[in-house]
């Protein structure tokens, strides 16, 4: 598939408000992004990638991402499960990550029955925090959103959230399993690259400094910081948030 044939659905409801920058990111790479309101979405068929942008969907009342997730659930969950099964890409940034977790799609469980096994809970500081994060790409596995980014490479990406502490049911074992599966993609680090760097490097208190994860197959991905906001801000090796978008476009181009 050529980039200009790739259709990307950027899904929004009231309060999702990072859709324009997500749109711009994909547009700059020559693909066809579409801003689609949940009320207008009739089918996922035309798309090869579904992106859930950041923001405060439905005000983030109750819990970040919950209302958006439950509306997706009641509208087109089966279709979304099939979309994922067919290998299409699904990404969630910030609020979008929270939505994917509340949908039970991340980290996802083997049975695929939509049980929620994780939560992005309130930051340890109990407040919204906007600051730049240094992220280390810790997975060796090829998540479709990071395939072009070498392992251990670091990116500088803005974080801006109040609920980003990644908690997993099942405790330490569950984390270890996630790590072993290569599902932990990004960790918060300091300038020295240490993956146990404390607050404020780890802005929310996530155990194991987890900033982003994918499902077992690598085609569903979520992260708290905002790569679309650092599309142009290169690190010393010339990588920027752009690499994530290039990765998924390359994946879709090569697969479908």
């Amino acid at each position, binding site marked *: 598939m050529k980039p200009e044939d790739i259709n990307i659905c950027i899904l929004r409801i*009231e*309060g999702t408000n990072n859709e324009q*920058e997500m749109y711009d990111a994909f547009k700059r790479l020559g693909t066809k992004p579409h801003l689609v309101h949940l009320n207008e979405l009739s089918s996922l068929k035309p798309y090869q990638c579904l992106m859930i942008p950041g*923001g405060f969907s439905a005000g983030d009342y109750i819990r970040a991402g919950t209302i958006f997730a439950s509306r997706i659930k009641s509208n087109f969950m089966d279709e979304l499960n099939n979309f994922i099964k067919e290998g299409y890409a699904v990404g969630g940034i910030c609020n979008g990550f929270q939505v994917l977790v509340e949908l039970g799609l991340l980290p996802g469980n083997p049975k695929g029955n939509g049980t929620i096994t994780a939560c992005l809970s309130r930051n340890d500081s109990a407040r919204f925090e*906007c600051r730049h994060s240094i992220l280390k790409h810790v997975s060796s596995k090829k998540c479709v959103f990071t395939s072009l980014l070498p392992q251990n490479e670091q990116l500088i990406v803005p974080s*801006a959230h109040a609920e980003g502490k990644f908690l997993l049911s099942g405790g330490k074992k569950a984390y270890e399993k996630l790590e072993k599966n290569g599902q932990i993609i990004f960790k918060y680090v300091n300038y020295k690259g240490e993956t146990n760097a404390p607050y404020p490097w780890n802005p929310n208190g996530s155990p194991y400094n987890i900033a982003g994860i994918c499902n077992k197959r690598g085609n569903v991905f979520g992260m708290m910081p*905002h790569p679309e*906001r650092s599309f142009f801000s290169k690190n010393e090796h010339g990588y920027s948030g752009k690499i994530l978008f290039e990765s998924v476009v390359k994946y879709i181009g090569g697969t479908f």
Partner: protein
Amino acid sequence: MSDVAEINLEVSDFELKKISEETGIGLSVDELKVVQEYFQKKGRKPTDIELQALGQAWSEHCCYKSSKYYLKKYLFHLKAPQNINVIKEDAGIIEFDKDHAYAVALESHNHPSAIEPYGGAATGIGGILRDVVCMGAQPIALIDPIFFALPTTKSSVIPKSVKHPKFIFSGVVDGIRDYGNRVGIPTIAGMTCFHSGYLGNCLVNVGCVGIVNKKDIIYSKVGNVSDYFVLAGGGTGRDGIHGVTFASKELDDDSATASRSAVQVGDPITKEPLIHACLEANEKKLLTGMKDLGGGGLSCVVGEMALAAGFGAKVQLENVHLKEKDLKPWEIWVSESQERMMMSVREEHLKEVLKIFEKWDVPAVIIGQVIPEKRMELTWKGDKIYDMDLEFVTTGPSYKRPIRPVRINNEHNNYSEPENYEVMIKTIINSLNCASKDWVIRQYDFEVRARTISSSLVGHINNETHADAAVIKPLESSQRGLVFTSDVNPNTVAIDPFWGSAGAVDECVRNIVATGARPHSFADCLNFGNPEKPDKMWEFSQAVQGLAHVAGKIGATFVSGNVSLYNEGPAGACPPTPTILGIGIIDDVDDIITVPFKKEGNLVYLVGKTRDEMAGSVYFNLRSLEGGKVPKVNPYELANASAGLLELANMNKISSCHDISEGGLILALAEMCIGNGIGASIHIKDLLRGDISLFSESNTRWICEVESKDSDAFESNLQAHCTSFALIGTTGGTSLSITHNKRKLADLPISELIKEWQAPLWEIMG
């Protein structure tokens, strides 16, 4: 017509006064007599809704009755070629590039925030967004200058009925955060100022800037006769009733309970789709006019839109969608419920407009139509309940109130030099008005929309220092950037309102120039005390002249603004506070200059003249010294220096730059060291005493870091612009060391500076 009452104005002065108080309309006896006369001619009594509408329209907040004389005389005639449509509308419109303009609005939400900080501040943000959206512009930045009593104030000195400043401060920040972040517009700049004079009367000023394609600019006026009025957004309720009349008087002990209905509640999740829907309908050319519902609610918006085009309006009030039952017609007419917009639409476009709002789940209803006569007529379930001439309603009174000059004391007693400069420097850096504001800044999403080139925090991650101005690149297709700063120093304005206000404009210009941008426009929010008190009115008139003294001579003028009077609480009047929002433009955002030192071994220059102008300085305040001279401004010096620095910036001859303001030279140097952890050795030679040299807050000064290879170019350019400068040191090392006329005054490790500078707000606010 039991929902509407007639009111008899043929009564004694005493009775008239009582009517004004009981109905809450806030008109004076003289003003009510004008109303009386008008209805005598009509041969009937006014209805309650008519009287309420007049109370709104003639309030200080809506008709600027005390201030417009001075504003017109000194500020409004200033001109700049880039101004497209200024002063007249909710937001000023200024040219951005060939095809685009930007919209600027700045307002106060002081009284509501003093009563209910969270809701008051949140709805302040909501209101200012509407002011920009109703010009057809996409909001791109929010700016929040906020002013409080010290959060360390002892509870024992706080009057009953006044909330602790800490509660107010954190409530205001929460409100701005929760609203701004939820609608997804970055709160990118502001100021956070503490002064004991804001006890019981905090100031919450909010600014917004938007970008608009020139062909999409829309004004607050209807198109033609028989256009329909479409009201969109949240339902109308009892919240915010008498908001403007409440903003037009002093707060007293009972305000908190008596003004509950003036409290407004923000609903950003209704607002966010409302913005999308309005902008979509406008871009599709389906609207003839648009205006937001702010102060005065429907009662102001309909008439103003109609009259602006030379017409009138007829409204069926029962069509307004409500969020609670049993509202009286007058309550519907004056309610200031949030998240509402008014549009005028031609018949052939009605359907399409309503469809757009339906898509976004935003209620929209038709409430009336434009009529040819300049008259307003309201009906309620078929009965006529309101019929007045629009010019009568909207003209309102205008006063030239008496003023009484206050003597300014420039003398001061002799005072000694500090015994220990290091201790004094740390005390300054650690004082609340100088210390890091990142406790506030980081609660706001300053990166959303992904167009933030530089925020208020610059330097190494998690050790950032303050920026002079924030930078946004509004368009995908252009490198051009807008630069934002907001400034005022109430300490100097309180002592000398003329020079203090002139200084606020100077500071805006300095901050913009320090970022490498040229000053392009200003907005002002003039927060003063009770205008019926001659000394307060004098402060106001002086301040306006001080602003005019500088603006207009540096290529930028005031394009919009707001006056907030009666800022007096149970603890007295707040210091006069003319907040200035300055906007600059830079051709390529890759060329911005930031504050932190960039490299070891570079030269450090002081640009501008330091004078013995210590009045209102942080240093004097900390030492409880009074008197002295307030820093003055020579606008021509400012223009020359700015031109010189901008030329140098264009030639890439400046590595970093910071203006000198509160805290003086020493704080500016410390902040430049903090950002990237690079120290400096500073050797000052001048004829001043050490403390004056380091701590004076004279205007029109900057510090520049320059590579040694560029020193000739730097010096000769400034000479050519008749601007004085001095080479004062070099960058490098891990400390900031200062000698003054060969005397060593201080040597402070950067790590210590960082600690002193970062900690205070976190320690107090948790």
